[in-house]
């Protein structure tokens, strides 16, 4: 974690679900994009199996539908640059940040609590 990591903002969206199996991830990302489009400072926290949303090399769904990988690439365009993940979740899955498609700051529990405390609105998906 970089020393200068900023843990506050307006809206924090916590993404706990992986792509494809449910629409939670996509609907959570939609909420984040809309909040950013409305001019709010938005942060994302990937937690639990949600960290798998960040894996490189994801493909389309069973009926050819797009995954969320392309949406993640759009985050910078919406000025969503505060991207965090729960380091414990990633470690439990035996993965490292090297296999992720975006630069995301790993956080330990005290910082996760600070992140949640530092945002006016917290939405979990």
């Amino acid at each position, binding site marked *: 974690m970089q020393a200068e990591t900023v843990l506050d903002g307006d809206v924090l969206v*916590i993404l*706990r679900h992986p792509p494809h199996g449910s629409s939670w991830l996509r609907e959570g990302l939609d909420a984040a994009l809309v909040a950013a489009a409305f001019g709010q400072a938005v942060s994302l926290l990937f*937690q*639990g199996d949600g960290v798998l949303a960040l894996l490189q090399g994801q493909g389309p769904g069973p009926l050819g539908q797009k995954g969320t990988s392309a949406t993640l690439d759009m985050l910078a365009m919406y000025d969503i640059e505060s991207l965090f993940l*729960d380091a414990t979740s990633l470690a439990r899955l035996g993965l490292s940040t090297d296999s992720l498609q975006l630069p995301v700051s790993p956080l330990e529990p005290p910082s996760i*609590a600070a992140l*949640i405390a530092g945002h006016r*609105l917290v939405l*979990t998906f």
Partner: protein
Amino acid sequence: MILHILNRSPSSSLVYRDALAGMGPEDRLLLVEDGVHGALPSQVRHFEVIGDRLFALREDLVAHGLDGHCDASVQVVDVDGFVALTEEADKTVSWF
């Protein structure tokens, strides 16, 4: 203080670990719906790091027949108390 609300039991879902990771030292955790199974003496150990900041919703305990099975360390509140907890909190976070 933030009120965290959990509606899954540690006996079937691991989401409680993420909820605990997100809790600050003053935060409170309220078990509701199927989450009240976490108040069973066999399950409360999963929440021991938060000590006496663990609550469970009485109406859901009763609905599940768990009224008499709840661990003594859990603070039982009714739905009026649930609202009071949200009034006292700066905000709420739901885990599911």
